[in-house]
């Protein structure tokens, strides 16, 4: 698959139409227009990344799609059902911060959501076993999060999301705290998981190379209030891994993203009173 096919776009998995987020003003302060308008159609099984300057509303966009925040204006539809401030069934989220439960072992962390859903214990065991194998956590299944590195904890969180078999996976800078090599390797694993699960992925990231390597399409957002300046189709085949960074097309895409983003990043810095 090269990007989102025409057939899959005919019945998009999630649609955002004129989505806007305005935080009401409190204590005499003016309302804050954080996001929008955003128009986007995610194809089923697509890997879509969002890049943009700091504070442009990327995470707000993810939280709106997840149903964690209400939208102020516009319409959001996931699998033909409207979403507005309530988490719909079939969505999984991996956050940038460590979201593992410190009092639970790796195995119990992964099983947490399934147990909450009251799933049959045999099925829980089967899914957790599969996820532990898939994420390379076999050695650590009895360990507690405090005994793991940041990367391993993030794997636990990804595994906890995967066992729920979400149809739309939202990733909010999941590798933000990792070093470059680990990010590339985790990116490879993410691509493998994406292919194996067939889920639609929406990735929020700061890293242009990560977005360019992983995605079918990359949305470049403006400074706040964030809206899409351009959506770049990478044209990568579905079977890909981090070796794609060696291709000439990769530098071209990264360059194109940066060209779009540079001015916006400077605007965002100026708005924050920062200087280079």
């Amino acid at each position, binding site marked *: 698959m090269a990007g989102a096919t025409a057939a899959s776009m005919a019945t998009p998995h999630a649609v955002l139409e004129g989505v806007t987020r305005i935080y009401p003003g409190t204590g005499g302060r003016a309302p804050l227009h954080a996001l929008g308008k955003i128009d986007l159609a995610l194809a089923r099984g697509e890997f879509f990344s969002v890049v943009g300057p700091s504070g442009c509303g990327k995470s707000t966009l993810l939280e709106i799609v997840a149903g*964690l925040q209400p939208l102020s204006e516009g319409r959001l539809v996931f699998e033909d059902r409207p979403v507005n401030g309530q988490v719909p*069934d079939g969505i999984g989220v991996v*956050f940038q911060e460590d979201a593992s439960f*410190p*009092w639970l072992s790796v195995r119990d962390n992964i099983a*947490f959501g399934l147990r*909450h859903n009251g799933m049959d214990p045999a099925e829980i065991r089967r899914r957790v076993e599969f996820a532990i194998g898939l994420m390379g956590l076999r050695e650590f299944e009895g360990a*507690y999060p405090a*005994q793991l590195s940041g990367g391993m904890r993030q794997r636990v969180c990804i595994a906890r999301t995967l066992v*729920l078999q979400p149809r739309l996976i939202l990733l909010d800078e999941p590798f933000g705290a990792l070093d470059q090599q680990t990010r590339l390797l985790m990116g490879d694993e993410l691509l493998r998981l994406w292919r194996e699960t067939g889920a639609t992925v929406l990735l929020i990231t700061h890293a242009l190379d990560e977005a360019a390597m992983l995605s079918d399409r990359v949305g470049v957002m403006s400074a706040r209030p964030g809206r899409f300046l351009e959506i770049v189709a990478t044209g990568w085949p579905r079977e890909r891994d981090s070796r794609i960074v060696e291709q000439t097309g990769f530098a071209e895409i990264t360059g194109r993203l940066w060209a779009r983003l540079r001015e916006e990043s400077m605007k965002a810095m100026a708005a924050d009173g920062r200087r280079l």
Partner: protein
Amino acid sequence: MRRVNWLRMAVIGVAVALIEALCRGGVIKPFTMTPPSQMLADLLPLLSSAEMLQHVAETLVNVATALLFAIVVGFLAGAVLFVLPRVRRVVDPLLSSYYAIPIFVFYPLFVVLFGLNRTPQIVIGFLLAVVAMIINTLNGFDRVPPVLLKTAKVLRMGRVATTRRVFLPYATLYIFTGLKLAVAYSFIGVIAAEFILSGAGIGYEINFAYNNFDNHVMYPLIVLIILISTFINMSLYAWEKRFLERQTGR
């Protein structure tokens, strides 16, 4: 046992040996203090006396009652204040300055209200312990990272499930700190109240022995209180250590 524990035991041992030597050598007069070995020797016959055991039981029941109420009321009050931030804003200054008020000054009032029985002692123990529970329960709930609450929302957990499966496990360690303080405060409250005006309990017996210059009863009872509170604290510490090892990998 780890080296630091040996060192701790050695410090206590040296201090006790020093007091023993000072007492035996006559530097500390028998009217002031009996030697530690004598305190232990005096404690054994006291503990085999049915009357003394009744006093010990009276104190322990009072402490347990005050503690139980403090835990339940303190935890519930902490939880209610957490979900009602406006009420919390009103109550917060009172909680933070609470221990500046000497609760014991209200003892006569409690005697008038509840009569000359064990209730005023329990009330004093409760009032000293309950705020430690409230403050630590609030502290525990405040510290739950927002990302865990977002995770609970993504997993479509309701308020009850989030409280039971996220808030409580995360806050356990902080609530436990409140519990440890509540144990200490309820002991202090009950025994001090027994000192002031009571006809039973370890505090009453210590006060009685003190007024009668009976060091062979007073000191063994002080040792008994130290032994009981040390035992309780060490049990709580051991549990906390196991919990901490799991949560922090330390």
